[in-house]
């Protein structure tokens, strides 16, 4: 030891990177710094733990992972018991997991943990998979000596739409509060009070507010944090696990479906570090209620005498086939299909309907793969090492929530620039650049020097904005992550569900390889994009429209055009799970199965095709999209090839639609520019019909910068009317300083927002106006 406090110790020679030690008498070697608990786990020895979790920082709070250690650096005192979760292995250390002192220490800790525990296992949802039960059985005392009064606390406390808290069952391992802090950088759950009065709770008794509450129920080793949806539904031995992939957004988090009999009772994470880092968002975790929703379409419908009436599949399919071949037809949708189904739809359009008038882009997203605009692709895990990230008018939190968790970690160490009219990164933005949509390209160009200087820069974008913005992004020279608007936008694009693309990114007109696989001639003229198709329909140039898993009345940015098109087109076929606004206009409605109800593959936002199994049956009268397509093809006398055409050597580029008209408000000051931006729990698809998500469903939300709202007489929570383009929509004010002043934000896919045109006036609803105007 140096005797001089300002002269540091000599730099020692670098220690070897591995250490050798023994565990229960057997020798092993581990990387230096490995915690004893990990070492013991790795060699397959059992060791109990509560506060330790591989995805959280160690705290050493529960003290149940006690092992006996002997050797350096504790050599002088003989064997001692210590916590495996806070002690790293050392060279020469002797670790005993089952020595008497270690067993006794664990036994006493378990006895302590039970003294104030309610022991209400019969009514506890964790029963059968509870670490407190399991470790007590394995290591605990057979009998408690505790004969005093237990501490009573809150039970079955409602923490909002998803979580239930039982403070008596809590063993204060702090996994939940550490997850909130370390992983989310939020504090939706905190510790309160101290000593044995300590409890877990939300801040001031308000409900849990974040998007990731459900992970707490899996982190919780006991039954303290459980889900409303799983309450009293099953025991773990009753359930059948089916591995699957979430299709709530384009990230494709891995999950396990748990079924009891024919019903889904819950979804659990299925850690895939490269995709989801082990987490799920609440939409993904709880949005399975639509599988049993009452409003699910269970039988085909055919319009007769102006009314949609139940029909057989034969009737519906022959009506559809007849209508679709009576004249020029076009296809919209595909972003919610499996990879296989997208390919089938692409073939059906080209070979059955003989058209390239096909487009999956029924919303704001202009392209799905970076290659489609000639850029290089980033990997999701690149976020873990990039030093500069541009978040381009995109909100991972709303559009691919679990990606946002990873981004929060990135933002701790790297520069993240949040560019656009709405602040998107709530928890960790290192730099906010607020600008109007028409300034985006210029602002991106300004970042070029910074990007040139960065080691490993990256751009996250949702593909909204048109060719000029794409060019500006390309000039940055950074790889791109494209967050999809629909879960399988990537698969739809790869299948050629675009007017100028064939499967495998072959250009329309250069599809010899595709034609060879399909064994048929292909139409050679590029088709019309979604706007072109809708315009053609509106002006009477199309005889029929086939809409698959899409609801343009809500999602297409120009809702007025969509409305006119659907009115004018003589024949409309809609294939969906619910009778959406678009489906209500159809001549034939084909009831489809949902994501968890069919097998196939789905491509996530980086084009990784992940298999999904069929977990549940779905309504008896509905069919998988793939089956519907196959039968419709048969009715059209087309045989669908199963084989996918090979990938083009140089991917063809897609033509990006011009950016839609987002324009600042008028000079009067009363007119605001309108922005439609994604919100996780908005939309007219499954979220609107899912009873589990009903409490958090976002509808009619009007986000405004607080600045100037006084002048307009608007306060948080005020009921307002939005007037624009001759339409009025009702909503509720949410003041949000992250919105650029002079603009108003509505949720994309929320009803009516796309009918208002680029500029709106916001007026308070007179108190007497009563019910909704829409």
């Amino acid at each position, binding site marked *: 030891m140096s005797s001089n*406090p300002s002269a540091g110790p000599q730099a020692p020679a670098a220690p070897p990177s591995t250490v050798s030690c023994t565990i229960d008498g057997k020798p092993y070697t581990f990387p230096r710094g490995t915690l004893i608990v990990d070492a013991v786990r790795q060699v397959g020895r059992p060791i109990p733990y509560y506060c330790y979790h591989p995805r959280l920082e160690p705290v050493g709070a529960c003290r149940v992972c006690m092992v006996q250690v002997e050797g350096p650096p504790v050599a002088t005192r003989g064997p001692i018991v210590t916590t495996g979760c806070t002690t790293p292995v050392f060279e020469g250390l002797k670790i005993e997991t089952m020595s008497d002192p270690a067993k006794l220490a664990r036994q*006493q*800790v378990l006895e302590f943990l039970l*003294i104030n525990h309610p022991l209400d296992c019969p009514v506890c949802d964790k029963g059968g998979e509870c670490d407190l039960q399991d470790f007590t059985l394995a290591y605990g005392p057979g009998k408690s000596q505790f004969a005093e009064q237990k501490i009573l606390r809150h039970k079955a406390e409602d923490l909002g739409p998803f979580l239930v808290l039982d403070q008596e069952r809590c063993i204060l391992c702090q996994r939940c509060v550490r997850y909130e802090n370390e992983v989310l950088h939020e504090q939706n759950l905190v510790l309160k009070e101290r*000593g044995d009065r300590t409890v877990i709770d939300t801040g001031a008794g308000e409900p849990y507010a974040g998007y990731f509450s459900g992970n707490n129920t899996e982190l919780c080793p006991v039954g303290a944090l459980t889900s409303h949806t799983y309450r009293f539904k099953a025991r773990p031995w009753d359930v059948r696990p089916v591995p699957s992939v979430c299709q709530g957004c384009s990230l494709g988090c891995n999950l396990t479906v748990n079924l009891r009999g024919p019903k889904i009772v819950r979804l659990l994470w299925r850690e895939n570090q490269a995709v989801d880092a082990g987490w799920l968002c609440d939409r993904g975790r709880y949005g399975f209620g639509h599988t049993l929703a009452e409003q699910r379409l269970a039988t085909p419908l055919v319009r007769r005498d102006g009314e949609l009436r139940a029909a057989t599949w034969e009737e519906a399919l022959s009506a559809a086939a007849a209508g679709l071949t009576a004249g020029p037809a076009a296809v919209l949708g595909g972003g919610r299909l499996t990879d296989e189904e997208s390919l089938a739809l692409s073939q059906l359009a080209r070979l059955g309907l003989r058209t390239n008038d096909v487009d999956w882009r029924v919303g704001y997203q202009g392209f799905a793969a970076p290659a489609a605009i000639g850029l290089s692709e980033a990997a999701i895990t690149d976020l873990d090492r990039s030093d500069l990230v541009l978040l381009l008018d995109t909100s991972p939190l709303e559009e691919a929530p679990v990606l946002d968790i990873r981004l929060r970690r990135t933002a701790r160490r790297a520069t993240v620039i949040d560019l656009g009219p709405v602040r998107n990164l709530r928890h960790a933005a290192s730099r906010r650049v607020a600008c109007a949509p028409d300034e985006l390209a210029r602002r991106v160009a300004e970042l070029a020097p910074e990007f040139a200087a960065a080691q490993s820069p990256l751009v996250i974008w949702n593909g909204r904005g048109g060719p000029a913005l794409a060019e500006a992004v390309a000039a940055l020279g950074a790889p791109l992550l494209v967050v999809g608007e629909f879960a399988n936008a990537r698969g739809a694009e790869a299948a050629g569900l675009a007017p100028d693309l064939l499967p495998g990114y072959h250009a329309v007109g250069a599809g010899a390889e595709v034609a060879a696989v399909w064994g048929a001639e292909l139409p050679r003229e590029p088709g019309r994009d979604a706007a072109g198709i809708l315009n053609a329909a509106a002006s009477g140039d199309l005889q029929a429209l086939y809409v698959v898993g899409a609801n343009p009345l809500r999602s297409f940015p120009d809702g007025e055009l969509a409305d006119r098109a659907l009115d004018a087109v003589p024949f409309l076929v809609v294939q969906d799970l619910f009778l959406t606004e678009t489906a209500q206009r159809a001549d034939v409605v084909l009831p489809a199965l949902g994501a968890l109800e069919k097998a196939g593959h789905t491509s996530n936002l980086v084009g990784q095709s992940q298999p999904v199994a069929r977990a549940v049956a779905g309504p008896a009268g509905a069919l998988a999209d793939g089956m519907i397509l196959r039968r419709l093809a048969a009715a059209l006398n087309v045989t669908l090839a199963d084989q996918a055409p090979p990938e083009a050597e140089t991917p063809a580029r897609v033509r990006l639609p011009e950016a839609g008209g987002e324009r600042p408000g008028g000079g009067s000051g009363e007119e605001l520019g309108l922005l439609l931006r994604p919100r996780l729990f908005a939309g007219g698809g499954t979220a609107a019909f899912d009873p589990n998500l009903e409490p958090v469903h976002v509808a009619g939300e009007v986000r405004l910068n607080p600045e100037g709202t006084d002048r307009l007489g608007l306060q948080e929570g005020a009921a307002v009317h939005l007037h624009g383009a001759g339409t009025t929509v009702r909503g509720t004010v949410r003041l949000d300083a992250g919105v650029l002043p002079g603009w108003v934000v509505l949720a994309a896919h929320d009803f009516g927002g796309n009918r208002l045109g680029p500029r709106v006036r916001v007026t308070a609803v007179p108190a007497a106006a009563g019910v909704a105007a829409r």
Partner: protein
Amino acid sequence: MIRKLLTEGMDTHDLTRLDVYRGRGGYAALAKALGGMSPEDVFNEVKTSNLRGRGGAGAGAAFKWSTLPNDGRPRYLILNGDESEPGSFSGRMLIERNPHRIIEGALLAAYACGMAKTFVYLRGEFYEGYAILKRAVEMARDAGLVGERILGSGFSHEIVVHRGAGAYICGEETAIMESLEGKRGHPRTKPPFPTAAGLYGMPTVINNVETIANLPGIVENGGAWFAAIGPEKSPGTKICSVSGRVRRPGNYEIEMGTPLRELIEEHAGGLEPGHELQFILPAGASSALIQPKDLDVSLDFDSMMAIRSMLGSAGMLVCDERDCPVHVAYLGARFYHHESCGKCTPCREGTGWTEKVLYRMEHGQGRPGDTERLEQLCQGIGGRKCLCLLGDFSVTYLQSALRAFRDAFVAHEHGSCPMARQEVAIR
């Protein structure tokens, strides 16, 4: 033997006044250090002095400082003025009546170790001490003794007086850092030790206020002078806080090595008339009791360890035949139950359970087996199974009482108290 090094002049003079403190030689050590000694010189004097920490464990002050890594990161000094151990009240006296000595000591330590800043952590209940110490720092700043270019030298240093808000655990060296960072006072796991990664993750030295108050004397008179006072391995003086059943409770600064008997019988005036010593808790509620047979023990770190107790903070609680060891155990258990931070299981649950058992025993509801139950509880909580030492503290006295007065505990199992205490139920 009474020997006033830290308390000298305190009874007769208002040392909180800067002019008075300086008039009696205060800040001369600082002037000496800054006037010609290098930081290494100051460090070496402290090393030679063999000064050991007065906060509890008796760690060598210079040794602790020497473990600071020399990596250019800012270093911090924390003065521990949490003083929450029941029975300890010497720090409060120093803070309220000799604040400049603490400030001067902090400046010397900071100079020796190159500290960026000093934080004095006072327990929340020290309303008066907080005001006095803050005022003293301001006075010192106005006189050029704190702040930029102290006494015209190249040395600059800031002292921040910080207040806790009611938590014994915040005297623990890592909990104090959490608390200073504005968090709940949960101890951290060690390693890393504070000198490696302490406050804000930076190298941090934490010393008790009394430890630090020794530095001016050491620098002024030399480390060798200090090392020659008292026993070789525990040099210097110690302010002992004597309370309980003595005639003159109070603080007594004695030379290390003074017999405990002398402290109790002479300086503290002996037991109250007509009463007889039964046992002493020498370092507050967390120390193993000392029985009359050991009264001749010498008051220094090593001799106290030799009789299975400790000098610690020297908060001496003297108990006579009216004080039932079971009652004292109950009072201690109630304290630890209230003060456990709740982070780790054995302490959080064990202290509550222990209190409940002792409460029953104290209230005539003892049950056969309670004594053994307490022994098991001690075993479950103690023996370094907890994250910090509070768990061990909570059972130290109890274990010693179970050894020395087992019969009294067993009697309580059957509803009787050998001391026939009339307990008042407070709930």
